[in-house]
């Protein structure tokens, strides 16, 4: 009764089809899009910076004169206002979208957002607390005063995420549903704290709080870019490294474990990286909603769920989206500036609803 004696009773094999793994190659398109948005964003604004003049000034440095040059005002606007703003937009957009993609894999839900872990509201609480206490603190902080709001926001983001992780059973085996619920609780608590602090704020502080909770790249300067770059790039690097293990995680935590992934440690790494990235992003730009949700969800429709494509594509498209939205925010109602987070929400809500009503959105 050995296996070799068993006569096959099963259906005959089907005709064999050739196998060609299809891999969409989005890089050219996404890079071109980002480049286009960046150039447009550098050129357009209250002080126009013609791209021809920009090219002329760059070529002049290497000894070529094409007869076009930037005026000194244009050069100042470009170097000290637009370039840091666009740089920050690229980094924050890339990090928000990549964190979104990673968290969607962690929770195996394509509609998850970085804000769900309590990260964004924790950052908001930190920032609002810093704004309201500004007067009391300013005397002692001196030149550090400029960093008080982003610093407090970053600490708030990290603290809230770790608290949610801890409440969700962080010590032993964590269940992702519990972490999400803990994130909701932490968000609610932070929201209550913000509400109470808002009551104590002066009118000027209220304006600052409102603007901050809707997000803006208006605070960009080379100092801010310099302070935000290390945490943003570290978070991006940490997440991009996990592309393969994120794919395995989509199969389910048990399945990933059986394929040799240390799932508990992976979850801790992902949550820490996301808190670092989102915390750093929110601390310099405020809450910019939906970038982390929209970009990976849309790209998954076009590219499939493989994170070796999805993560870097999300970074590219997230950067384009935020730089583009910021361009709109600062040019739509010159000289006023719209909050960029409100614009991304205007874009995001209908797409989100569309994704929700799609059956089996993935």
């Amino acid at each position, binding site marked *: 009764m050995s296996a070799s004696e068993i006569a096959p009773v099963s259906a005959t094999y*089907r005709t064999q089809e050739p196998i060609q793994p299809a891999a969409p190659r989005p890089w050219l398109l996404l890079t071109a899009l980002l480049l286009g948005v960046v150039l447009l964003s550098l050129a357009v604004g209250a002080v126009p910076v013609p791209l021809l003049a920009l090219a002329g000034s760059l070529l002049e440095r290497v000894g070529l004169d094409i007869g076009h040059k930037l005026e000194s005002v244009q050069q100042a606007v470009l170097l000290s206002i637009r370039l840091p703003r666009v740089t920050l937009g690229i980094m924050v957009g890339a990090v928000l979208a990549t964190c979104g993609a990673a968290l969607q894999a962690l929770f195996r*839900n394509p509609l998850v957002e970085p804000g769900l872990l309590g990260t964004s509201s924790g950052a908001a609480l930190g920032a609002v607390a810093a704004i309201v206490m500004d007067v009391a603190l300013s005397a002692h902080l001196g030149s550090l005063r400029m960093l008080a709001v982003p610093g407090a926001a970053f600490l708030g983001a990290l603290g809230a995420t770790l608290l949610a992780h801890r409440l969700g059973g962080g010590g032993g085996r964590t269940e992702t549903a519990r972490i999400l619920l803990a994130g909701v609780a932490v968000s609610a608590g932070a929201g209550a704290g913000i509400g109470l602090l808002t009551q104590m704020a002066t009118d000027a502080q209220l304006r600052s709080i409102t603007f901050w909770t809707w997000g803006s790249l208006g605070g960009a300067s080379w100092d801010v870019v310099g302070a935000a770059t290390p945490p943003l790039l570290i978070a991006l690097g940490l997440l991009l490294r996990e592309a393969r293990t994120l794919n395995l995680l989509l199969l389910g935590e048990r399945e990933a474990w059986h394929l040799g992934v240390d799932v508990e440690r992976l979850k801790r790494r992902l949550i820490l990286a996301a808190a670092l990235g989102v915390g750093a992003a929110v601390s310099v730009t405020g809450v910019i909603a939906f970038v982390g949700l929209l970009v990976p969800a849309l790209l998954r429709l076009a590219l499939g769920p*493989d994170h070796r494509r999805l993560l870097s594509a999300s970074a590219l498209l997230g950067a384009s989206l935020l730089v583009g939205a910021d361009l709109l925010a600062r040019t739509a109602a010159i000289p006023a500036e719209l909050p960029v987070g409100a614009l991304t929400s205007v874009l995001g809500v209908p797409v989100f609803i569309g994704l929700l009503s799609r059956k089996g959105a993935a």
Partner: protein
Amino acid sequence: MSLEVRGIEVWRGRGRTLGPMDLMLQPGEVLAVVGPNGAGKSTLLSAMSGELRCSTGEVLLDGTPLLHWKPRERAMRLGVLPQESSLGFGFTALEVALLGRSPHASRAEGSADLAAAVAALDATDTRHLASRSYLTLSGGERQRVQLSRVLAQLSEPLASGHRYLLLDEPTASLDLAHQHLVLEAAARFALAGGAVLAVLHDLNLAARYAHRMAVLAEGRVVELGTPAQVLSPELVARVFGLRVQVVEWPGSPGPLVIPEGRAPLTP
């Protein structure tokens, strides 16, 4: 060289759901685990795969406690097909099978991995689904694609040690022909030197394809042996509460179990 369970017990709260139990899965064999609902079959499988920590006792993979293995080394030898999977993202069937190669491929998959994945799809008759999204597949097709993933994970003979395949109700949602196809694939895996433990509900399937059967009831092994030794009307009545006839049929590799009706409540 074996996958060995030594004196394990699993407690949930105050109740013991499994054990004490000793069991050895040996290379070259198909071991079927049968038993009524709640007998502890899936718990045994979780414990044997290392996923569930045992309260006492230990599980040895080729002589070394399961906990001491590096995760990737373990994954090259020990593959598990869960009862149901919750993949909710649109990988193609081929991509799912390729995910099984991840313990082997350090970076990108090579042509050897692709060949292994395609062969695994062939073995479960899912190659024609290779470029279909997993989300568009039926329950039985998904189950077969998931089996391909585990077969691809264990497709290579190892330089040292053996390969162990644990299947939790691999035939649950399959049509009749594919039930046999999947167990034939398991039998071929055993013939090539691997070891298979399969939780099965159909005693006739178990009798046909298994070299040995373990009958579980209330968390303990109550019978262990070849299907011909194990399957008797008395055992089925005692364990499952069903009156049956067990007959030999010419040409059938194992005994056949023919149900007659529910057994009287008292033995």
